[in-house]
């Protein structure tokens, strides 16, 4: 382990550490543009120059491996002068347009020029001008500002796995572009905006809407997929201006998917901002009291078995707890959270978690993906898979209906249950790979179990996990990949059919036959609402989507960034989302709506504030107390039901990455992305605007 001296401080570092990293360990801040911890080293900006004793000239610390007995100085006049020289060269061609630049106020170049920039320029020639490039509906480009750090190129190639960005030309004429200015085809493309140290790549939807310093920043949790990415929501007034990722090494590292980042404009459109009651076949605006009266009139007096509740994919655990309690008091056991009809066994927690954790992917050495397209279902988990793939220490195989373009190579084994059966019974070659692996992993997607024979497929997966040794000491490689942010929390709370209760299919059938007379949809829009028959439908949610269209009473709720809520991601990690903005109009936090309805229904719920409700949640799911922790589950018992499986191929449940939930469907940005991905819209070519 090399020991080196940095400004008189001795540090010992791991072999392979760079001088820059060693300086950081010694508490010395090194300015940089091209260097980024998660990308390969380019060494082209030269801003990180430091002085090394006995070296003839300053060294680029990001590209120099730390060696024993090095003596590094980071604060000498020579270092300052060298960095000032670099800065002067960078500023030769960089426009001084900070007042009209979206990066202004949060710009690396702006910040560092305060430390190393001269007050005036010695450059009298013409500055370089570069035509702007089209990179799709998400990324605004002002390429004259580019300092050619190549972070975006390296991100696209290494992390996103879509090597579409490149630098053409040379020297002064070098320009960053996509091939023939096509839109980037990555669902992680927004991250290049964060990576860009200057204002060359900025957010197109956010362009010229706000300044960094006038935004109120709230740390929250994303609910667009089941990853539970950590986000920061930036709000001005009551409007969400943008969503940015937050660092969490165990979940999203520092990346965010485009849907999570850019669907926020959906928070402004198609909002339910007041209660509605259907009168004479038409939905009409109503007061809360009228809405509650309508509910009481239709629900009071019904038997428990005639009432049902379905929780949607973005329902928070607080509201589901309240609704479950209310249903319990009404005597109903017809409640379900599995809109897609996934045959999950809620009684065995290890049977529905991503047990090895998202970070566990970094250790896996054999991965079998079954019935899932992780790129569309959980883009950040896909990025982890790619990260592991790039180490070359993992074998990946896939069973599914088609052979999707993931961002890594995999072995395609087959389309459906027959192949999984062969593997579970050890008759398939890949079974040997899993058996021989130290940390084998099975990723079971909803596409494999959201079908009639789903329980049998789940049993097969369990059989495979046992027979191939996926679960061993300190390692549980049985992973279910969920697509809904609400799902694991709902299963943990037991928002599933109780004794004699009906599941989603049963509820819809009951509603059609008239057996079920009232259905409460808690943000449930992904069910076939045409099958609700003549049932009285209460829709509680934030957006006017499929559920609200069919509803008889609409209760306006809060979207995921508008409430304090607890989320449980696919790996069972409990995380607290915080209220960043107020819900619009009369809309309220969802649990309080249910609490309010409970009184006119004659079954007052025993919690008056969030704290009391959360204590009730801890009764239902004690592990909710471990916030930010991944509460694992013991492996054991059985889940799934052994039985016959059909030949139908495992198709991913997410057909369109950009349009999976009501917020995304209300977003113009997502609509544009979706159209582009489907090839419906021709990308603009050449310069624009």
């Amino acid at each position, binding site marked *: 382990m090399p020991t080196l001296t940095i400004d008189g401080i001795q540090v010992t570092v791991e072999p392979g550490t760079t001088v820059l990293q060693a300086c950081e360990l010694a508490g010395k801040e090194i300015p940089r543009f091209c260097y980024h911890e998660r990308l390969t080293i380019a060494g082209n900006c030269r801003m990180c120059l430091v002085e090394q004793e006995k070296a003839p000239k300053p060294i680029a610390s990001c590209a120099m491996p730390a060696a024993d007995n090095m003596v590094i100085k980071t604060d000498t006049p020579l270092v300052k002068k060298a960095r000032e020289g670099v800065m002067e060269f960078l500023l030769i061609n960089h426009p001084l347009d900070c007042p009209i630049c979206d990066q202004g106020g949060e710009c690396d170049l702006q910040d560092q020029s305060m430390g190393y920039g001269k007050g005036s320029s010695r450059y009298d020639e013409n500055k370089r001008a570069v035509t702007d490039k089209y990179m799709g509906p998400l990324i605004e480009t002002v390429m004259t500002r580019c300092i050619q750090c190549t972070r975006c190129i390296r991100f696209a190639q290494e992390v996103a796995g879509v090597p*579409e960005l490149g630098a*053409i*030309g040379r020297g*002064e004429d070098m320009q960053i*572009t996509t091939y023939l200015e096509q839109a980037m085809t990555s669902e992680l493309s927004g991250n290049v905006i964060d990576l860009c140290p200057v204002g060359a790549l900025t957010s197109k939807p956010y362009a010229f809407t706000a300044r960094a310093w006038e935004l109120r920043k709230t740390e929250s949790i994303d609910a667009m997929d089941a990853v539970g990415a950590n986000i920061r929501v930036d709000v001005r007034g009551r409007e969400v201006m943008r969503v940015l990722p937050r660092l969490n090494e165990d979940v999203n590292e520092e990346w965010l998917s485009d849907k999570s980042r850019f669907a926020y404009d959906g928070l402004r459109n198609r909002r339910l901002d007041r209660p509605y009651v259907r009168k004479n076949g038409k939905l009409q605006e109503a007061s809360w009291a009228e809405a509650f009266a309508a509910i009481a009139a239709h629900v009071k007096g019904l038997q428990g078995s005639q009432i049902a509740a379905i929780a949607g994919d973005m329902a928070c655990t607080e509201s589901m707890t309240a609704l479950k309690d209310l249903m319990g008091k009404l005597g109903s056991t017809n409640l379900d959270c599995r809109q897609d009809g996934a045959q999950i066994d809620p009684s065995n927690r290890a049977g529905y978690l991503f047990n090895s954790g998202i970070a566990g992917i970094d250790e896996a050495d054999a991965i079998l993906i079954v019935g899932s397209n992780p790129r569309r279902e959980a883009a950040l988990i896909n990025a982890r898979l790619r990260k592991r793939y790039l180490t070359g220490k993992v074998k990946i195989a896939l069973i599914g209906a088609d052979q999707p373009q993931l961002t890594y190579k995999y072995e395609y084994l087959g389309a459906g249950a027959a192949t999984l059966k062969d593997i579970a019974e050890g008759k398939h070659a890949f079974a040997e790979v899993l058996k021989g692996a130290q940390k084998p992993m099975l990723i079971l997607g909803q596409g494999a179990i959201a079908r009639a024979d789903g329980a049998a497929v789940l049993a097969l997966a369990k059989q495979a996990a046992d027979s191939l040794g996926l679960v061993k000491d300190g390692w549980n490689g049985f992973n279910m990949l969920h697509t809904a942010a609400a799902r694991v929390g709902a299963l943990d709370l037991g928002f599933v059919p109780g004794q004699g209760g009906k599941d989603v299919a049963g509820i819809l059938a009951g509603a059609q036959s008239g057996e079920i007379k009232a259905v409460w949809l808690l943000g449930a829009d992904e069910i076939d609402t045409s099958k609700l028959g003549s049932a009285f439908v209460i829709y509680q949610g934030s957006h006017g989507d499929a559920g609200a269209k069919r509803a008889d009473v609409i209760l306006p709720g809060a979207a995921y960034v508008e409430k304090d809520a607890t989320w449980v991601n696919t790996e069972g990690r409990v995380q607290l989302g915080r209220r960043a903005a107020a819900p619009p109009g009369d809309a309220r936090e969802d649990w309080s709506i249910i609490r309010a309805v409970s009184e006119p229904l004659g079954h007052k719920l025993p919690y008056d504030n969030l704290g009391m409700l959360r204590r009730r949640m801890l009764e239902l799911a004690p592990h909710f107390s471990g916030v930010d922790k991944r509460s694992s589950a013991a492996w054991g018992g059985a889940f799934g039901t052994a039985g016959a499986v059909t030949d139908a191929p495992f198709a991913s449940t997410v057909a369109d990455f950009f349009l999976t939930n009501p917020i995304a469907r209300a977003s113009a940005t997502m609509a544009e992305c979706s159209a582009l991905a489907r090839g419906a819209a021709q990308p603009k070519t050449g310069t624009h605007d």
Partner: protein
Amino acid sequence: MSGVHIAPPELQPASFAFTAENLELAKAHIAKYPAGRQRSAVMPLLDIAQRQHDNWVPQAAIRYIAEMLDVPVIKVLEVASFYTMYNLAPVGKHFVQVCTTTPCWLAGSDKVLSACKKHLGLNPGETSADGQFTVIEVECLGACVNAPMLQYNDDFFEDLDEESTGRILEALKRGEMPKPGPQNGRLSSEPLGGATTLTTFNPAASAGGNDD
């Protein structure tokens, strides 16, 4: 002229493929590199494509080569746009590259350029209306000892002045091929006016067969 000059879409052919002969050549180049490193062959392949396609590389060829080498298209475009030797837009049949880097400039490359203007009517970066001649300014071509110089297609014409440049260009216009190399009478890069050292040295008489 700044930036990369890529031919507009209307000039781009829809498809490109190597001739059978060139395909063999390309395969021979690819075979020089170990498995998994075929991308190293990108430069010779671009050169073959350029020679096959009227001295310029169309985008179809860039996609064709990217597919052949299994690399992203943008990576091939990066290489093709980095090196000035690859033309990404049509050039004249007679492609004249005049070196204007410091040694040539000091030795009179301005005169060479003015001869081009006089005899062809072309400024650097321009192509004649009939598509016969293109003149461009290039950086050092590595013939400083014979400065100033120009490269005509694959040949170097060196030790130029305004008169000799004009002579060469006029000959090219007539469809003749003047003799490449130094134009002031010296042999390759020997001193003008003959050798000044080793004048008495006789290789044939030298024992031990020193080839110097």
